């Protein structure tokens, strides 16, 4: 398979990975963690409330992640990041409010 051809210059971000060299895909089924289900539910609620009106708005947020952040985050972490960006953009919460809440939860759950 050709992996070094002309299309590399067309790639717009780390998500645009079709045709790049890759390791074998792990096709085993796995359960979603509880927090992953919560992120999924939150995104659906944001749809229900009209904060998100099209999944393109989530994809845009995911694709806006810096390449190293994109690679580091798991699938639902990317969703959470994009949902937060959208909620901030739409004026649902401010970045400061979100940061305060995250800090409070971190403190509460610190071992």
């Amino acid at each position: 398979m050709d992996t070094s051809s002309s299309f590399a210059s067309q790639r717009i971000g780390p998500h645009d990975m079709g045709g790049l060299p890759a390791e074998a895909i792990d096709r085993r089924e796995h359960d979603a963690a509880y927090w992953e289900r919560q992120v999924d539910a939150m995104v659906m609620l944001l749809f229900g409330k009209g904060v998100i009106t099209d999944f393109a708005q989530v994809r845009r947020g995911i694709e806006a992640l810096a390449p190293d952040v994109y690679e580091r985050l798991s699938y639902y972490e990317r969703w959470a990041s994009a949902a937060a960006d959208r909620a901030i953009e739409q004026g649902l919460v401010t970045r400061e409010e979100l940061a305060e809440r995250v800090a409070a939860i971190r403190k509460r759950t610190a071992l």
Partner: protein
Amino acid sequence: MIPRFADGDWVRISLRTERRHHRVPAYAKGQVGVVERVCDDLFHPPEEIAFGDAGRWEHVYRVRLRQTDLWPEYGGPEHDCLELEIFEHWLEAADE
């Protein structure tokens, strides 16, 4: 709204630079394929609705590309194909 292309039409996926969110993978840009079907609905262009402008509706086409065109070193059968759903504004009329 009348689709610009019909089943069986040859089309080229635009080879253009788009930095906004869009739904065309890099490897498909500039490729020529055939319209396998006109998708049975209208959709908002991702480039616009991702940023909040949902005014326009557009046809989407399932475009069939040859794997041997996509990957010069493709080792599978000649008839292998890949189908992608592509928005109308990314397609140009083409010859086989």
